[in-house]
C-alpha cells in the first residue's frame, strides 16, 4: 500500500515538474544554459550583449531587437509595461512574421526557449526592478465582428489619424509613412494592414486589439492610453459632436461654450487618468468617471480592430506553385479594358517576392510582398493585369546616393525568348537569363503609359529591342497600390519576342523595384520561374464521350441480364 502511495505521489509530482517546465508562466532563473543557447542561436542578430547589433544586423530591416531598453513590440500588457514571460516565450516560439525573426518551435526545446527568456531579461534591469507583475490587457467586453462595428471602426480610423501613416485603405501608404523612424533612429514602415500575414504579433482581432491598447513599443505606433485617447472622457456621441464643432471654420458663441464644456469634461477625466498613473489615491466617484471613460476607449478599440480585420483577406494568397499556375482565360471578342468589371471575376494568382541577393548591389530587405496577376486572351491578343502594393509613389524625382541614378518604382515581367521543350530542357537563368536569353517587359513609374521590351542575357546585359510599340499599356497608382494593364498580340513579327500559343506552359518571372526602398539596378525584389499558360478552350469532346459511355453501360447491363436469364432457362 505504502509503495503504491509513494509511487503515485512521485508520478504526480513528476508530471507537475514536466508540466511546469513546458507551460510555466514564468521563466526559470537565468542560467549558463540560457546564455549558451542565446549565444548559439540568437546572438548573431541580437548581439552577444543583447544590443541588437549582431553580425547579421547590418543588413536587416526591421533591425533585430535591442534588449537593453526593455522595449518590446508584441505584448499582452498595457502601455508602458514590460512583457510577460509568456509573451517573450511566444515570440521566440512563433517568430515575427514579416521580419527575419523565425519561430524556434522546432529548433529549440521548450526548456531551451524558457532559458532564453530568462537570459534575455538579464539585459534590462527594469525586469528586476519591477516588483509588480506587468498589467495585462483585459479582453473582456469584446465587440463581435459585424458590419455595423466595421462601419464605426472605419470612422474612427480617420478620426484617430490612422490614415496619416497607414493610408486611406490601410496599405501603409499614409503621407507620413516614408519618414518614420523607430526609437533607435532606424527607418521603419507602417504595417500594410491588408497583409495580415505580415503582422508581427498575429492578425486575430484580439491580437490587433492588444496592439492598440498596449502600443508597439519602440515604434511610432502609439498606444491607446486613457489620458491621450481621442476625446477621453466624452461619450461616443459627445466626441462626435466635438469633432463636428471643431471642424467648423468658425464657431458661434453658443458653440464655443458647448465645446468649452466638452474640454472641461475631458480635462477632468484626463486629470484623473494622469493622477492614477502618478500613483495618487482616487475617490469612488473619480474611479467611476475613469472607468466610464475607459469603457469608451475599449469599445472604440474593438470597433477599430474589427475594421482593421475587415481589411485583410482570410488567408495569405497561395503562391502560384505546382498546378496552381497562372491560367489566362479565353474570351470571345474584345479583351477587358483597364477598368473593366470582368477583372473582378478572375481570381488572381499570387507571386510572392524575395530580395535579390545574388548579384551586387543586393536587396536584403524587400518592401514589396508580391504581385497579383490576372490574364485574359482571345484569338489574337492577350492582356495582363499586374497588381502590387507599394507604400510610396516614387517616380524618379530623387536620386540614389551611391549610383546617382533616379529612384523610381518599376516592374519587369520576364519570359524566355523560346519556351523550353520538355521537362528537362534548360530554362534561361532566372535572373534575366544567361546563356539562354529572356524577353522582358519593363515598366517604370516615370513613364506610366509605356512598357519597354528588352532582350537580356544576364541582369547587366539587357538590350532595348529595336522594335517597340507592340504593347498597349495603361497604369494607375491609388492608395498604395499599382495596377498595370498590358496587352499584346499572341504572335509578333519580332523574332526576339516570345510567341504565344494556347496550351503551352510558359515560364514567367517578375522583378519589382521600390524606389523608396532604394531599389535601383540589381537591387530589387524578384521571383524565380513560375508558370503561365493560355488555358485552352475546353474541348467539346466533353459533351460527346460521357453520354456514349453511359448509354453503352445501360446496354451492357441489359445484355448481362439477358445472358443470365438465358443461362437460367438453359439450366432449367
Amino acid at each position, binding site marked *: 500500500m505504502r509503495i503504491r502511495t509513494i509511487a503515485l505521489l512521485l508520478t504526480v509530482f513528476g508530471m507537475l515538474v514536466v508540466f511546469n517546465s513546458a507551460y510555466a508562466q514564468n521563466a526559470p532563473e537565468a542560467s549558463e544554459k540560457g546564455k549558451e543557447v542565446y549565444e548559439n*542561436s540568437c546572438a548573431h542578430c541580437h548581439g552577444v550583449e543583447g544590443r541588437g547589433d549582431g553580425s547579421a544586423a547590418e543588413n536587416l530591416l526591421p533591425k533585430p531587437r535591442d534588449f537593453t531598453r526593455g522595449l518590446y513590440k508584441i505584448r499582452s500588457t498595457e502601455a508602458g509595461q514590460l512583457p510577460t514571460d509568456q509573451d517573450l516565450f511566444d515570440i521566440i516560439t512563433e517568430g515575427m512574421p514579416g521580419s527575419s525573426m523565425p519561430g524556434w518551435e522546432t*529548433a529549440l526545446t521548450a526548456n531551451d526557449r524558457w532559458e532564453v527568456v530568462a537570459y534575455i531579461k538579464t539585459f534590462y534591469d527594469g525586469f528586476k526592478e519591477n516588483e509588480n507583475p506587468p498589467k495585462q490587457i483585459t479582453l473582456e467586453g469584446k465587440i463581435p465582428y459585424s458590419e455595423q462595428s466595421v462601419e464605426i471602426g472605419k470612422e474612427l480610423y480617420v478620426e484617430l489619424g490612422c490614415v496619416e501613416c497607414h493610408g486611406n485603405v490601410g496599405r501603409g501608404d499614409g503621407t507620413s509613412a516614408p519618414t518614420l523612424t523607430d526609437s533607435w533612429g532606424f527607418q521603419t514602415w507602417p504595417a500594410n494592414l491588408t497583409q495580415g500575414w505580415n503582422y508581427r504579433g498575429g492578425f486575430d482581432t484580439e491580437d490587433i486589439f492588444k496592439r492598440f491598447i498596449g502600443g508597439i513599443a519602440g515604434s511610432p505606433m502609439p498606444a491607446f492610453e486613457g489620458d491621450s485617447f481621442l476625446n477621453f472622457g466624452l461619450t461616443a456621441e459627445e466626441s462626435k459632436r466635438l469633432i463636428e464643432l471643431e471642424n467648423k471654420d468658425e464657431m458661434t458663441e453658443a458653440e464655443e461654450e458647448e465645446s468649452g464644456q466638452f474640454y472641461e469634461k475631458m480635462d477632468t477625466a484626463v486629470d484623473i487618468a494622469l493622477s492614477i498613473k502618478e500613483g495618487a489615491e482616487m475617490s469612488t466617484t473619480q474611479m467611476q468617471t475613469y472607468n466610464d471613460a475607459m469603457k469608451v476607449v475599449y469599445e472604440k478599440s474593438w470597433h477599430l480592430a474589427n475594421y482593421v480585420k475587415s481589411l485583410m483577406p482570410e488567408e495569405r494568397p497561395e503562391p502560384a506553385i505546382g498546378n496552381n499556375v497562372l491560367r489566362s482565360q479565353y474570351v470571345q471578342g474584345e479583351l477587358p479594358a483597364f477598368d473593366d468589371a470582368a477583372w473582378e471575376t478572375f481570381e488572381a494568382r499570387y507571386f510572392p517576392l524575395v530580395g535579390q541577393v*545574388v548579384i551586387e548591389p543586393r536587396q536584403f530587405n524587400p518592401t514589396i510582398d508580391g504581385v497579383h496577376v490576372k490574364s485574359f486572351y482571345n484569338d489574337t491578343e492577350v492582356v495582363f493585369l499586374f497588381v502590387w502594393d507599394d507604400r510610396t509613389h516614387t517616380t524618379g524625382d530623387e536620386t540614389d546616393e551611391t549610383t546617382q541614378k533616379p529612384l523610381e518604382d518599376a516592374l519587369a515581367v520576364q519570359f524566355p525568348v523560346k519556351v523550353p521543350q520538355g521537362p528537362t530542357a*534548360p*530554362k534561361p537563368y532566372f535572373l534575366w537569363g544567361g546563356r539562354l536569353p529572356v524577353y522582358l517587359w519593363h515598366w517604370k513609374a516615370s513613364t506610366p503609359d509605356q512598357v519597354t521590351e528588352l532582350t537580356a542575357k544576364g541582369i547587366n546585359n539587357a538590350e532595348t529591342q529595336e522594335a517597340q510599340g507592340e504593347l498597349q499599356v495603361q497604369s494607375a497608382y491609388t492608395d498604395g497600390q499599382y495596377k498595370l494593364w498590358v496587352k499584346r498580340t499572341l504572335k509578333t513579327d519580332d523574332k526576339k519576342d516570345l510567341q504565344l500559343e494556347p*496550351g503551352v506552359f510558359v515560364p514567367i518571372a517578375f522583378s519589382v523595384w521600390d524606389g523608396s526602398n532604394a531599389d535601383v539596378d540589381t537591387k530589387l525584389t524578384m521571383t524565380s520561374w513560375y508558370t503561365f499558360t493560355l488555358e485552352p478552350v475546353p474541348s467539346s469532346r466533353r459533351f460527346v464521350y460521357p453520354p456514349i459511355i453511359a448509354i453503352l453501360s445501360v446496354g451492357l447491363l441489359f445484355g448481362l441480364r439477358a445472358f443470365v436469364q438465358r443461362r437460367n432457362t438453359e439450366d432449367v
Partner: protein
Amino acid sequence: MKKLSLFTICLIILIGSWVFLEFVVGGIISVPIPNSVIAMYMGLIVIAILVHISVEDSQFREFLRPIHETLVDDRRRVHRRVLVVLIPLFLLGYTYSIIAQRANPPGSPRDAHPSPPLELTYKDEGIGTMQDVVNPFRHYEKDDPEAFKAHVENGRRVYHQNCFYCHGDHLDGQGHFAPYLQPLPANFQDPGIIPNFQESFFFWRIAKGGPGLPAAGTPWDSAMPIWEDHLTKDEIWDVILFLSEYTGYQFRTFGEAH
C-alpha cells in the same frame, strides 16, 4: 439478424480498406500515402478476394448469387431499377470529369546530387582535384583549437551576413526568403546532406552557385548565388567549418579509415 452475403462482405472489405488507407492512415495518422501505393494495395486486396472466392465452385456461386438475383429475380426489381440509373449516371460524371480536366504543367525532375567537375577552382584559379582538396583550416581542429574556433566564428559571421536569408538561422533551409524559392534551399540539419559530401563539394557548390551546375543538373532554377563573386576563398572554407560545427555533422572524407 440476417447473415451478410459473401458479396457484401467482399464489398465491405474493399471499401473499408480504401477508407482506411486514404483517410485513417493518410488523414488521421497523417502519413499521406501516394495514390500509386494505394492503388497497389487495393490491387493486392482485390486479388486476395478473387483467390478467396474462387477456391471452391460453391463459394464462387455463393459470391455470384446476389448479382444473379439482382439481375433476374423479380423480388429485386427495385434494386435493379435503381442500379440501372445510378451506374450510367456515375460513369457519365466520371468520364466528364476526366475529359474536362485541365492540363497541368510538366513536373521538372531534379538532380539532387549533381556531379561536380574534376578540378576545383576559385574564380579561375585552380585549387586541386575535387577528390584531394581538403579544407585548409580543418587541421586546426586538432592542432590549434583556438585558431579553429576563430575560423568557425568567422564562418558564423559570414553565414549570418550572407546565407541565413535562405538557409535559415537554424541552418534548416527555412530562412525567411526560403518559402518562395524553387527548388528549396538546402537543409544542413538533414542527416543526408553534410555526411554525404566532401568539403570540396560544398566549396564547389558555394563558389559556383546555381549557374555553376553541370548541364545535366536540372532544373536551372537554383537561386544559389555565385559566392566567389562576394566571398574570399578563406571565407568559404570558414563557412564550411561553421556548417559542420553548428549542425554536429561531419563531412565525408576519403582515404582515411573511419
